[in-house]
């Protein structure tokens, strides 16, 4: 992060321009009328029931002014005016595409016959593997065809794409394409893949300590973790416009516009520069559109390129769910030993994941799972192996948490099992093992800096009345016939950074216009998380202009190339830092200009003379080097960007003359007239990362986001039905840029995690067809499933030195707290005399009932 010489900034909203902008906006479009609103809603009280920000040091300790601004698209979202890919109006002669996918898990393609389509009025074209220029892609290994050639490897693999004048005709044409298959031997489970030794990549290891060190007690077992569908509401969508001279303009619902651009270009045989990928916003992504949006964009682009007509491909929810990969299923064999007091001595875990048919991101996901097997706990002797298995399922992919949840589920399960075995409260086992001073080096050799875990555990235990409720629950379980209750308090310590170093870079373009309004574009994709609002807040606060004046542009490879996916919770971290760097450079130039203007008679200012050439042009004397401390010390003035004004104070005359002040927009104009740039492009990279994937050791992460959650569940003894009665979450998010948006991430991620461990059940048939491929059968949490009482708090932590402005990433970590619902179910089941347990995610009603009533004659 850069700092400008002696420039300071603060928020403000009294600029005239902003006022006129607001008036204009009010007249033209839908904007909230604050006067009207303030009388009707009290936002403070609205939040206080659900989500309070705990601020032990008092409200003034943090810059709170802009920290609860609504999402920058909130007003258009609530009005239905936000534009998504399929909301783009249809162009004249636009074509609609439909996909033909494999109906076999593994088969040779004998023939593709589209002759029956030709008789269909309105049918235009079909493309198959033969039409693809470079028919191979993959985010890590290039192992996947864009359109299947000769062989299909999963049910749902795209074989051909048809285009027609209307969607109805395209769908009809797709049905008329006859594909003949010769089924081949298929592998449908991790167990099968292990026995056939079908693996992707080699076995990975992370280890520390003495492999022979053992404690007096032991828990062992096998944990089976199913996948989960992302269930973003907006299914994958693409519109492609062929522009002149081979240029393709791709509008895609992609979390990774750069990769989409590259895959499209290679598929079409174009240079990367011949393809522009634009993403305005996503109707949810959650990792599902990180890699897998790219080939879908390529189908549509190939058709547009071939026909030279605008093309649209919108997957239905059913097709999207059948075609695209999910969270990787895992099977974990574990053996953990510990002392009498529950202190873990050793953990030996073998992780196997189901990648599906192609590598996609599975090896990186496995790596993060292995890196998170410790979660919040210090394990002195640890031996973890990871092996990715190849099966004939859809290729599984990134999903919020990216492997982390699997490692964390394992160790949190072990905590519960240790507690049962030595008959102490699981919370005591956790506190006994948590990272704490002197016990703060992870198994991959990174120190847990700024470790808040001990205080998080302590605070939440107190605030959620853990002990009292534990007693109430024990009493309940003794005295009630029809339901049993469970309570569990788990933690998360989530590593922030891509574990692949080169992805930890971002860039930003900031254009300030002559009226003082600002446009910012970065590589970050807005998918609901509020990255745009956060970056706009940072920028407006740095420039001292109202956030209304900062417009975040769509993510486009035209403006920001070679970007990383918006993933790994890193969107704001890397792109916000890049934007700050650009702003710093602009501010430095503006500050110098303001200092010069302050000593220049107004009649000689460029606005008075530049057109006439009557005064010499203002030159910014010294070369710009923001890192130069010497330069800063030499400066004899300070400059403040605040309230739409730029204020200069000369040290020499600080007591004799009033400060010089100029309107921000006027200063920008003077800069332009002086031929000084008020635009900037900056590149940012995260320093000091060094994780060696071969040795499994090193600085894998920049910092950790931490949190704890206590969940209480009530289970019907007759049906296995689970109710989540109460959830308390306490998180360390450093100094949030926007607390309300952060809390929204916490509640959303938690409920998503809760769905994964309870009701979300992927059921496949023998051919690998997903049977639960729509919301009528695949059950994400409904509003009725949310905790009856749901308290979310943030702690005050100004100590995160690793990231700019002491912020911490929030996107993924709270999802892992959803695991507390699963361990609470474990806890409830363990209250029975037999200490019943389940070692499966999700814990559906059926799974729970099986665990509760092993006597009911289960045959399968």
């Amino acid at each position: 992060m850069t700092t400008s010489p002696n420039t300071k900034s603060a928020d403000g909203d009294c600029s005239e321009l902003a006022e006129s902008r607001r008036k204009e906006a009010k007249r033209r479009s839908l904007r909230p009328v604050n006067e009207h609103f303030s009388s009707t809603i009290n936002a403070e009280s609205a939040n206080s029931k659900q989500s309070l920000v705990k601020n032990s040091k008092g409200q003034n300790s943090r810059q709170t002014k802009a920290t609860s601004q609504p999402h920058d698209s909130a007003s258009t979202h609530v009005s239905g005016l936000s534009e998504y890919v399929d909301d783009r109006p249809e162009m004249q002669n636009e074509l609609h595409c439909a996909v033909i996918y494999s109906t076999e898990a593994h088969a040779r393609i004998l023939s593709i016959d589209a002759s029956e389509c030709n008789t269909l009025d309105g049918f235009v074209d079909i493309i198959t593997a033969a039409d693809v220029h470079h028919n191979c892609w993959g985010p890590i290994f290039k192992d996947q065809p864009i359109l299947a050639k000769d062989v299909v490897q999963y049910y749902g693999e795209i074989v051909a794409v048809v285009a027609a004048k209307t969607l109805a005709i395209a769908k009809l044409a797709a049905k008329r394409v006859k594909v003949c298959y010769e089924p081949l031997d298929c592998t449908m489970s991790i167990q099968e893949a292990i026995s056939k030794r079908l693996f992707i990549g080699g076995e990975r290891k992370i280890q520390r300590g003495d492999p022979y060190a053992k404690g007096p007690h032991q828990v062992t077992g096998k944990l089976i973790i199913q996948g989960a569908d992302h269930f973003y509401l907006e299914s994958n969508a693409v519109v492609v416009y062929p522009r002149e001279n081979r240029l393709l303009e791709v509008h895609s619902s992609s979390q990774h516009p750069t990769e989409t651009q590259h895959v499209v270009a290679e598929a079409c045989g174009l240079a990367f520069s011949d393809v522009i990928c634009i993403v305005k916003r996503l109707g949810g992504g959650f990792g599902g559109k990180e890699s897998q949006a790219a080939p879908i964009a390529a189908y549509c682009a190939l058709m547009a390129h071939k026909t030279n007509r605008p093309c649209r491909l919108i997957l239905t929810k059913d097709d999207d769910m059948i075609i695209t990969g999910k969270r990787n299923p895992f099977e974990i064999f574990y053996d953990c030993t510990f002392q009498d007091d529950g202190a873990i001595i050793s953990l030996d875990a073998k992780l196997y994941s189901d990648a599906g048919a192609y590598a996609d991101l599975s090896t990186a996901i496995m790596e993060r799972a292995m890196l998170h097997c410790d979660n919040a706990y210090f394990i002195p002797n640890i031996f973890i192996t990871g092996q990715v298995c190849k099966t004939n399922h859809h290729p599984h992919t990134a999903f919020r948490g990216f492997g982390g949840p699997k490692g964390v589920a394992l160790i949190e399960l072990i905590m519960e099992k240790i507690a049962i075995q030595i008959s102490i409260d699981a919370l005591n086992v956790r506190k006994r093992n948590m990272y704490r001073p002197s016990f703060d080096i992870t198994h991959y050799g990174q120190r847990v800096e700024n470790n808040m875990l001990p205080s998080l555990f302590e605070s939440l235990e107190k605030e959620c009345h853990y002990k009292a409720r534990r007693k109430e629950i024990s009493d309940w379980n003794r005295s009630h016939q029809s339901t049993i209750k469970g309570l569990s308090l788990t933690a998360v310590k989530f590593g922030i950074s891509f574990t692949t170093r080169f992805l930890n870079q971002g860039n930003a373009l900031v254009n300030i216009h002559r009226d003082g309004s600002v446009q910012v574009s970065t590589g970050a994709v807005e998918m609901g998380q509020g990255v745009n609002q956060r970056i706009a807040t940072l920028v407006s606060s740095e420039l001292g202009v109202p956030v209304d004046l900062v417009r975040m542009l769509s993510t486009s490879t035209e403006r920001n190339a070679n970007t990383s996916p918006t993933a790994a919770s890193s969107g704001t971290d890397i792109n916000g830092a890049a934007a700050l760097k650009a702003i710093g450079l602009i501010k430095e130039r503006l500050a110098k200009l303001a200092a010069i203007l302050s000593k220049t008679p107004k009649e000689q200012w460029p606005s008075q003379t530049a057109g006439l050439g009557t005064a010499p042009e203002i030159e910014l004397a010294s070369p710009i080097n923001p890192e130069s401390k010497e330069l800063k010390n030499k400066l004899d003035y300070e400059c403040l960007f605040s309230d739409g004004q730029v204020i200069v104070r000369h040290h020499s005359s600080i007591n004799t003359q009033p400060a010089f002040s100029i309107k921000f927009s006027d200063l920008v104009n003077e800069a332009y007239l002086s031929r000084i740039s008020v635009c900037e492009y900056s590149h940012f990279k995260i320093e000091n990362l060094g994780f060696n994937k071969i040795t499994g050791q090193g600085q894998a992460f920049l910092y950790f986001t931490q949190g704890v959650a206590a969940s209480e569940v009530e289970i019907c003894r007759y049906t296995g039905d689970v109710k989540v009665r109460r959830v308390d979450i306490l998180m360390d998010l450093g100094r949030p840029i926007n607390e309300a948006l952060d809390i929204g991430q916490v509640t959303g991620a938690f409920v998503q995690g809760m769905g994964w461990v309870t009701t979300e059940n992927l059921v496949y048939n023998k051919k690998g067809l997903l049977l639960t491929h729509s919301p009528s059968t695949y059950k994400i949490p409904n509003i009725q499933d949310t905790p009856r009482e749901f308290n979310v708090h943030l702690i005050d932590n100004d100590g995160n030195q690793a990231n700019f402005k002491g912020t911490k990433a929030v996107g993924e970590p709270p999802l892992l707290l959803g695991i507390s619902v699963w361990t609470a179910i474990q806890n409830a089941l363990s209250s029975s005399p037999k200490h019943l347990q389940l070692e499966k995610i999700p814990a559906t009603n059926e799974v729970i009932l099986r665990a509760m009533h092993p006597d009911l004659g289960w045959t399968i």
Partner: protein
Amino acid sequence: MRHVTTKSTTKKLMAKKKTVKHPIEKKSTRNLSAGIQNGSLSTRISANSKSSEIFFYLNGQEVRPTAEEAFMMTADWLRKRKGMPGTKIVCAEGDCGACTVLIADPRKESLDFVPINSCVYLVGQLHGKSVVTIEGISNGSILSPVQNAMMKCHGSQCGYCTPGFVMALTGLLESRKMDNIPAAQKRKVCTNYLTGNLCRCTGYAPILDAACNMTDDSNYELKHRYLNEKIITTLKSNIWKTNQMGDKHGPTWYSPNQLEDALKFLKNQKSSVKILGSTTDLGVLYNKGKSQPNAFLSLQNIKALHASKVTPKQVQIGAQVSLESVRGAMKNIDSEFVNLLNIFASPQIKNVATLIGNVANGSPIGDTIPYLLVRNAIVYTSGISQGKIRERKIPLDKFYIGYKTSALESQELITKITFDRPKANNFVRHYKISTRKDLDISTMSMAISLDCEFSGHQFTIKQPRIAIGGMGPTAARIYSVEQKWEHQILTKTTILDLTHETACSINLELSPLSDHRGSADYRRALITNFFSKFASEFSQFLESMGVP
């Protein structure tokens, strides 16, 4: 991961497959008016009755859709034909609520705007209604109280579900004053109203905040804007009139105002006719390419079918009565039925889906069927025979003859259903289990009803009725058990033995399937446990009656 091979695709629906051939079919066709056999649809229909075109209001503007448009789903039509993409489509099956719009139907007793799923609602069905979409909510440039609350409380993240939530919450504000809801109940009322909307970003907490912080503001009431006197008058003059659409190239739309005309149409259409109660299930099949009927027969303009009646002993529900109306009618009459309807489907579905639709669908799980079975329901059907309307009364337990097949003949319609009101000494329980509690099709459901005779400190069971759904090709009564239970004298110990024995015998008798909702073993285990639960609840009841 469990691999299963069967898949049930059942839902609430009105349509009836042509599975049962009636012997008098050919004979009676000739007896009907000669003009119907040949010629275009318009001449055929206009020969029978006066008709008018499809007409409704969209955000206060009059709309007369073309024939082609009448067969589109409302959400598609709004997005692709009206340039109103604010209404989103996610699942196209009425399970996510992103497509929620509000309709007011002057055919109903109370003329309120209620939320529906526009992805499974044909444009033709909008006839005579006032429709409001997300584009019609704000007042010029000023956001409505719902929109403001959603914005201020951060109720939207990615925004894709947001229009649907705004519409559902607007429906809530239209139906009741927030100020009148006690603070303690607000959360529950709002939660119940939002059961039909899925959100994947927020975890619902901020949305619930927004809902609880909405304020009443009469300036934004849609009734004032989209149901003014002129609109109501115009709509009322258009309902209860026959309308039809279509030519020989496309499908046929027919919505008569007389039952007789509907029956004649059914009789004379050679191609596949789908009967529309509300299209909440047919719409799903239509969207997913599983049903492409040539003709739609809508019953909504037939006034007689909208009637429901509660007598001292019985309840009678017409074919066009929505589940929401049934729920209203059952309040204070049959609380167990109300409980069942509370967790059945979503408000959006219940506002249009009909009880008869659920019955006609004949799903083996059947949602309401097991309960209606223990309430001795009787299905009333009508057909044309010898040029006259012929009515049949079929007890519900004789109605289903196999998987999704019933005693309903291809040229018959269900006109109404009757069922018993609970007697004072009735003890009834309905149990349903599904993957998710709300808005989910049951894995299994069971209803048990007993009349209890109390004499000389002992309880005797009279008229026990037990029905189970999800354990075979149809939901069905378990007569063998009922016989065993009849006249049994119950105490807290005998009920345990009786239910245990019953569960064992039922599990021997029935052979449920494994599917994506649950394994056969799970279903068997549930039978056992449902009876245990019943025993426990019945024991408590006995205790409260002072039985040892």
